[in-house]
């Protein structure tokens, strides 16, 4: 064993290690300075704000959420009446409106985006060129210009009420909006909903059973279609058995306007269309890049072991492409939610327009309102990236 004879050490004894060159001292010093400066900054802003609020006679605190908001909104998914509705309720109206337009836009833009992305890779040069033009035009023009263009240029040119476009007699399109039938659930409708949920669970369990069976016996079972069949049959049977407890409220022309049904204002339609096609372009690029990222050797190897083209796509190409597609796809989804805030430019009542603009102007509780709204968006973004991190960790290719 080597000796621990420190008499061979030429430097000074431990206690006089130079203080300012000690790594730990320096780290502590840097961090204290940063924390201190930050704390001072926060204190400085805080005192200024408190003083300014006092000078202007503005109030603070979150009690305003229970006061009545004195304005109405033209589009709401939940109950809200002027005069009794509170600011808190208006916030929820706005949140639901934001989520409503965002979720439909996300679904549609993903579908269209996949479609266009695959078209970009078509062997037909013209088709690929058309897809390229679509993508490039949409990506290089600012979204706000597109939104305003759709709103002013297109939807303002919709026909007058009396000359509404008529879709099979159940939906009507005019310059006041799109009127679609709204579902009116009857008393026993909850049974149908329960049946639906049960059927979905059953379909998943069927898939698991089929996969296990394949592992053990090698036999394949069309679990996907069987599952769809179960969902449709079970839900349908219960629906019919309970006497079809779903009626539809179809809009009808009464006087100068349509009453009933579900009215989607032109601002909603313009926002939905522009968000959908703008983000479909980004989605198309992500899909294209993802499919291209799978090396050609994969297709060749899969063919060499005798897989048919359909199975090659499903088992080899698409799973690997999805690895590359999912992160930018999810970030595009987040952008849809964030960009829905541009509703404020065309008067759709999303959370920014209702809460951050109108409510703020009316009530004056600037800091609280700004904080709540930003917290809303942060929650959504962070939730989505949290789930994306989990997904990423699970599907990363295990490397040595």
């Amino acid at each position: 064993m080597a000796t621990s004879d420190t008499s061979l050490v030429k430097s000074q004894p431990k206690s006089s290690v130079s203080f300012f060159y000690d790594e730990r001292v320096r780290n502590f010093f840097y961090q204290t300075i940063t924390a201190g400066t930050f704390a001072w900054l926060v204190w400085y802003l805080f005192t200024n704000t408190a003083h300014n609020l006092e000078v202007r006679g503005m109030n603070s605190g979150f009690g305003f959420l229970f006061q009545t908001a004195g304005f109405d909104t033209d589009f709401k998914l939940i109950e809200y009446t002027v005069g009794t509705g509170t600011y808190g309720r208006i916030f929820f109206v706005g949140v639901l409106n934001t989520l409503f337009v965002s979720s439909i836009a996300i679904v549609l833009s993903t579908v269209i985006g996949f479609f266009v992305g695959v078209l970009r890779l078509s062997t037909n040069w013209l088709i690929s060129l058309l897809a390229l033009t679509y993508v490039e035009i949409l990506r290089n023009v600012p979204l706000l210009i597109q939104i305003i263009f759709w709103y002013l240029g297109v939807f303002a040119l919709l026909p007058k009420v009396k000359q509404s476009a008529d879709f099979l007699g159940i939906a009507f399109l005019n310059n006041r909006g799109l009127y679609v039938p709204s579902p009116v659930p009857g008393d026993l409708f909850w049974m149908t909903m329960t049946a639906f949920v049960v059927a979905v669970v059953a379909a998943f369990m069927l898939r698991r059973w089929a996969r296990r069976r394949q592992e053990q016996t090698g036999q394949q079972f069309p679990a996907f279609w069987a599952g769809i069949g179960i969902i449709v049959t079970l839900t349908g049977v219960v629906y019919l058995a309970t006497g079809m407890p779903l009626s539809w409220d179809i809009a009808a022309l009464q006087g100068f306007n349509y009453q009933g049904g579900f009215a989607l204002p032109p601002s909603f339609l313009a926002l939905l269309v522009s968000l959908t096609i703008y983000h479909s372009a980004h989605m198309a690029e992500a899909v294209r890049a993802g499919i291209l990222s799978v090396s050609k050797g994969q297709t060749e190897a899969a063919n060499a072991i005798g897989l048919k083209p359909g199975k090659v796509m499903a088992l080899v190409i698409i799973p690997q492409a999805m690895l590359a597609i999912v992160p930018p796809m999810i970030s595009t989804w987040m952008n849809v939610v964030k960009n829905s805030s541009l509703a404020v430019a065309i008067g759709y009542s999303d959370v920014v327009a209702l809460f951050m603009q109108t409510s703020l102007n009316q009530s004056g509780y600037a800091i609280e309102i700004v904080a709540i709204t930003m917290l809303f968006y942060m929650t959504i973004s962070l939730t989505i990236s949290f789930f994306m991190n989990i997904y990423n960790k699970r599907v990363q290719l295990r490397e040595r």
Partner: protein
Amino acid sequence: MVETTTETTEAETPGQLASAASSDVIILLNHVNKWFGEFHVLRDINLSITRGERIVVCGPSGSGKSTLIRCINRLEEHQEGDIIVDGMELGSDLKNLDQIRSEVGMVFQSFNLFPHLTVLENLTLAPIWVRKVPKIEANEAAMAYLERVKIPEQADKYPGQLSGGQQQRVAIARSLCMNPKIMLFDEPTSALDPEMIKEVLEVMVELAATGMTMIVVTHEMGFAKTVADRVIFMDFGEIIEVNEPHQFFNNPQSDRTKLFLSQILHN
């Protein structure tokens, strides 16, 4: 559970101590322990290396040999024990650390040349910016080292334009430009094509002949046999056996050493 053997004849007896003091122990590791999270990667390492000594460290992958030499220039931090380099203790004292790093040169398995600088600029970077040597002097010294590693004509090329063997020789010259007292080699030839290993080993042999203190982690047993003063075998984070090459290869004491030698000498 360290099976040390002939290493005990090194710095144990008073006579050896005295001669060690006079021949200058330049690196001293004393009960050094290191963990990577829960993994105990270096277990009670005790080692003293004298000035001018050539040490080869070998062992299976994961044995901690790279971690050991990376602790010596604090690319890794040890949690327990003392490491004393040229009389200065390796700890959280930043001044000592800078001093130690400028005296200890390191050659990496993946060369780590700076791709955005020419070969000459790679060599003169540290002398200019750390030792504050004027540019003309630095260039002259750099060219001298390039001649020593036999590639002076590559001075104005970029690392990407050189072969692996040439890049590693540039890396060695780059470390030498700081006039280090100790040179650490972390598997210098493992990333090279076989036909280039020889040119790098030749440079290392020539360097050893000048009396440089060298610690080399390698699988090149030929180098160990011809150049090393001592060979250290590590396994699972411990030093299993230390001996001079002839004894080590012909008369290994521990079973684990025997197993390792049988595996690598078969190739």
